[in-house]
């Protein structure tokens, strides 16, 4: 099971703060992103950063472990 998190503007457009995607062997970040982006296109138009288990990830070819927490995030605007 993969826990997906949305915040702020992404959550607003997606209409939810989190969702669960079933884990399958060999699932990579790129595939997860592509699936969700098709489903939540307006939300993913804002996505700039991806974090897995709280750490930013730049290489979308990374395989995901079962139980991962993945956040698709808009550009930060804190401070």
């Amino acid at each position, binding site marked *: 099971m993969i826990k997906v*998190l949305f*915040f*702020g*503007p992404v*959550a*607003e457009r997606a209409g939810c703060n989190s969702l669960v995607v079933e884990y399958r062997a060999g699932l990579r970040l790129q595939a997860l992103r592509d699936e969700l982006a098709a489903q939540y296109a307006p939300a993913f138009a*804002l996505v700039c*950063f991806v*974090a897995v288990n*709280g*750490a930013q990830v730049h290489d979308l070819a990374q395989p995901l472990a079962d139980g991962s927490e993945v*956040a698709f*995030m*808009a*550009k*930060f*605007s*804190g*401070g």
Partner: protein
Amino acid sequence: MSAAVRIQIEDFSQDDEIDAMRGSSKRIGGIATFLGCARDFSEGREVSEISFEAYGSMALAEMNALRSEAIEKFALIDARIVHRIGTVKGGDNIVFIAAGAEHRAAAFDACRWLIDELKARVPIWKKEITPEGDSWVVPHP
């Protein structure tokens, strides 16, 4: 004693933060601080409130990492970072950064680096609440 890095709904006191920092060493010669405040006006629109949402666990971890990096990079004696979440009004405090060093140049450089890095690296998002409606702020590239 409060932690040196915090994300909180409540307001904070600069005097308390400075006292906490100064308690750590009498070798501090200069403390540079930055206080970010909610403006009642942004890009031509009146703003009545600003609301902040954070990816809490990641934001706190990034802020702690920033503090450690700054202490190392600028040879600080101490540093503190506090960011509010929830809803604040015009004129209210949003973020506070303090950098204490033996001499002022390092304190200034570190304080500026910390707020720049915080804006770039810490997962917090801001929504401006105006009389015409709400909108999430999308920073300029």
